[in-house]
């Protein structure tokens, strides 16, 4: 279980998160939403121990992550970050890097079990056929799958994803999130995912954490958090919240404050002719 208690942290002179507390049970699918600059990515970075808390603590399975050895934490928590540097590595080489936490003190090369774990990770993500491809020659969607494969090679219990669908077309968005849902269901992975797209968040996440100005504004089931009043207040934008007729999950309809008028439509027609 992930437990964040009164977390305050940030960078040098700037505090980004203040007094954030929440819990995510084992096997949870938790989405983090909020406007740009609200502290979503910072929250993931704190949980993956890239930045230390100024105040408060983060517990994983009852253990303070600041006190865990780096390697042990990497065996439990894997991160799919937004844009890591990807040199001329092949997919397989890249996925095998996920085995680094499992190396013993004077072990320099992979063992059979490492190859097995990488193989499984590539199979789960459908990357087996791409193993020899170099990463900088792959499309955005394929790269994202390779990132997830590397995270899975770590055999984690908690998977943190930072906007894995950014810049992807709708087919890839669905493919990536279907995969994450499958991992959550079949492997029992606890998932914490930062999403910008509220509709994807509503569709895939069981619970949501709405963050505003470094504080938790609302948390709970997706259906509860995605209500038009909270979304309007946090994003300062009027919206409508509807129900997806297929999945019965909430989805957001944008309402422009400056809607198209009859005149706009007419002038468009004239230009077209």
């Amino acid at each position, binding site marked *: 279980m992930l437990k964040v208690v009164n977390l305050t942290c940030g960078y040098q002179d700037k505090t980004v998160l203040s007094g954030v507390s929440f819990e995510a049970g084992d096997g949870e699918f938790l989405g983090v939403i909020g406007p740009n600059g609200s502290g979503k990515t910072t929250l993931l*970075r704190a949980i*993956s*121990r*890239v930045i230390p808390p100024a105040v408060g603590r983060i517990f994983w399975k009852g253990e303070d992550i600041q006190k865990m050895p*780096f*390697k*042990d*934490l*990497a*065996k439990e928590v*894997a*991160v799919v*970050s937004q844009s*890591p*540097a*990807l*040199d*001329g*590595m092949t997919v397989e*080489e890249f996925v095998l*890097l*996920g085995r*680094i*936490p499992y*190396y013993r003190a*004077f072990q*320099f*090369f992979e063992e059979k079990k490492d190859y097995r774990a990488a193989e499984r990770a590539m199979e789960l993500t459908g990357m087996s056929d791409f193993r020899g491809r170099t990463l900088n020659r792959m499309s955005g969607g394929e790269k994202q799958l390779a990132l997830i494969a590397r995270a899975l090679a*770590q055999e984690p219990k908690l998977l943190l994803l930072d906007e894995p669908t950014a810049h992807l077309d709708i087919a890839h968005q669905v493919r990536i999130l279907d995969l994450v849902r499958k991992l959550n269901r079949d492997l029992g992975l606890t998932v914490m995912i930062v999403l910008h797209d509220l509709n994807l968040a509503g569709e895939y996440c069981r619970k949501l954490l709405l963050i505003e100005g470094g504080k938790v504004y609302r948390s709970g089931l997706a259906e509860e958090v995605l209500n038009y009043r909270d979304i309007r207040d946090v994003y300062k934008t009027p919206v409508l919240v509807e129900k997806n007729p297929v999945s019965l999950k909430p989805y957001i309809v944008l309402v422009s404050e400056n809607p198209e008028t009859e005149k706009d439509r007419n002038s468009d027609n004239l230009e077209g002719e």
Partner: protein
Amino acid sequence: MAFMLLAVCLVALCLGSAGIPVKKIFPLLLGGRGSTEYSILFDIRLPRIILGLAVGGGLALAGVILQGMFRNPLVEPYTLGISGGAALGVSLNIVFKFYKTLGVMTFPFFGFLGALAVIGILYLVNLRKATVRLQGLLLNGVMISFISSSLIMLMMSLSRAEDIHGIVFWIMGSLDEPNWFIIKITALAAVLLFLLSYLFCRDLNAFALGEEEAAHLGIPVERSKQFLFIIASLLAGFGVSSAGMIGFVGLVVPHFVRMFTGPDHRILMPASFLAGGAFLIFCDTLARTVISPVELPVGVITGILGGSFFIYALSRKGNS
């Protein structure tokens, strides 16, 4: 790579102002003690080869470490001002004539002191709250190299002709080191530092993805950076203080080796160490033989050969 090194060493043993054929080397090795050829081989050429291996290997390895750590292909031991500091130390020794009272050991000693001073300054300036800021380290290093070269020029402009000659000669770099003790120390340091650095090969592989990603993979990033920086600095410090400023090995050899081995540091590190040694011994052999018996500064050869070869290799890679 090991075969290449062996071949280069053998050629280096044979060639010189007095040529010794390959087939004579082994009989000499077994029972030629006392002959002139034996002493040419083992008192003059072998020490140069050992020093070449240690310095060339050390500089190339330092280049691999720094390029991996900074994720910047242009970083080498010299960019960080370490060699500038060493040169400044040696220049001080020459100008203030400490060597006259304290002996020839002062040259490497002052060189090493200069290198250590730079490492210390860089470290203190850039170490904030136990995190090493890499960009700052790089910029400060470049500035320190400018400052030290300006100070050297200042000293040269104020000193007498013989001193200037001494400084220039040292700056050009040479493997001509008559003192076995210095050679042994340099070789021992190179081997020990290589073994130590190899413990960090996985860390360097993870660094290729960025520091944050490395942290996600369970690498204690700050501690690794500190160790790697000190190892690379010491490698460069030992090399520069015993053989002078031999440029380009640390920059070119890692790139060249990477074209063959790929970016995996587990292979890249030993391969670069061997290739750096082979390259420097090869350049030194050329320096000794091109217009023999006059000897060229080896730094000149490494620069010309390394630079042109690198441009050629890069353009071929670009075309293919």
